């Protein structure tokens, strides 16, 4: 009991410390997250974090491994492969926009100096489509999940490596905005991302074990049993915001893109393992 109280106090100090020390850089932030989780879960190796709550929940893990034997996202990968190969009306295709494709998931999100904003993979896909006279895809549901599933699958084993270029101070600003979003309490239920996914990671809300933020971004898009389909990271962000009775923000709007930038930076060094399957 005492041990638990001490842990809670220290984590509270960490969370409070984050709010107080704005000058801590991204590297220090990431290290603090790593230290906090290592201390909470001393037996969980870093390479397990891409598995989310299943890294710390042995019972849930068994069910998950059973699901992964016949991956529910497989048909989405196949549909995405066809999408990738099918030329646009102008004869060009995704390969023309992404010469290194389809193994490109580890290049995103990235700071785009010319655009002056964080470019995520879904945003880059729609920019490619629009540049070629195609309609943009919706950002939460539907076909965008096919192409993302295919790219994620092909990018498996690549390593998260988000850069915050020093030659453009706006990049660090975007990161800081994402970080601020993460630590800001919001909604009628007054939760921040940190309340559940840093301060109380490993605790249970009803029967759900709260997942660590390290690894949150490695496995998108995700087949979520609750959805009965594959959905995007920003769809999950909106769902989280709805759960805490906050107004969901626009998928691929600036705020969620900055949050993704911050969150993905935390997972630097972790392998990509999308698409994923979750309850």
């Amino acid at each position: 009991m005492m041990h638990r109280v001490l842990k809670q106090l220290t984590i509270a100090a960490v969370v409070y410390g984050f709010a107080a020390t704005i000058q801590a850089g991204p590297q220090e932030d990431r290290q603090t997250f790593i230290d906090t989780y290592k201390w909470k879960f001393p037996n969980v190796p870093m390479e397990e974090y891409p598995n989310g709550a299943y890294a710390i929940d042995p019972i849930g893990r068994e069910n998950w491994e059973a699901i992964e034997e016949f991956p529910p996202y497989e048909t989405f990968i196949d549909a995405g492969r066809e999408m990738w190969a099918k030329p646009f009306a102008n004869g060009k295709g995704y390969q023309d926009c992404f010469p290194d494709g389809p193994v490109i998931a580890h290049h995103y999100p990235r700071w785009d100096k010319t655009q002056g904003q964080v470019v995520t993979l879904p945003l880059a896909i729609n920019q490619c489509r629009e540049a070629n006279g195609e309609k943009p895809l919706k950002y939460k549901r539907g076909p965008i999940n096919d192409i993302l599933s295919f790219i994620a699958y092909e990018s498996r084993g690549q390593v998260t490596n988000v850069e915050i270029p020093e030659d453009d101070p706006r990049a660090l600003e975007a990161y800081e905005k994402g970080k601020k979003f993460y630590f800001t309490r919001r909604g009628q239920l007054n939760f921040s991302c940190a309340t559940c996914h840093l301060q109380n990671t490993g605790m249970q809300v009803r029967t759900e074990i709260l997942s660590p933020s390290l690894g949150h971004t490695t496995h998108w898009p995700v087949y979520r049993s609750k959805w009965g389909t594959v959905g995007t990271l920003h769809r999950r962000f909106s769902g989280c915001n709805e759960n805490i009775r906050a107004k969901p923000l626009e998928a691929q709007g600036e705020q969620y893109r900055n949050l993704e930038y911050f969150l993905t930076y935390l997972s630097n060094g972790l392998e990509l393992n999308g698409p994923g399957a979750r309850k």
Partner: protein
Amino acid sequence: MTKHFTSLASAAGTLTLLISALLVTQTANAEGDSNIEKGRAIAFGGTKGNCLACHMIEDGESPGNLGPPLIAMKARYPDRDKLRAQIWDPTAANPESAMVPFGKYKVLTEQEIDYLTDYIWSL
């Protein structure tokens, strides 16, 4: 005879008083019990207090463990008002508290918080 009658009458009067006093007490108890019942429904209701999301309570199914088990509440909160204040806005006592400010953010009405406090205090 008259004297006897008077004392009889006064005895009857006393009895009536006693009975009505008893009745009043019983009604008050019944009201208290039904308030506790209302509070229990709020505590267990998924869209109301949803206390079970984070706290173990009696025989409630699938409780979470983010907050402490709700037991021995009168020992922990000898003062009912302090318990009510904690439910109304837990961040007043501890800014880092993960608990929902049920009153401050109007998740529950003042009346509902009263019922809920009655119930939680009875645990």
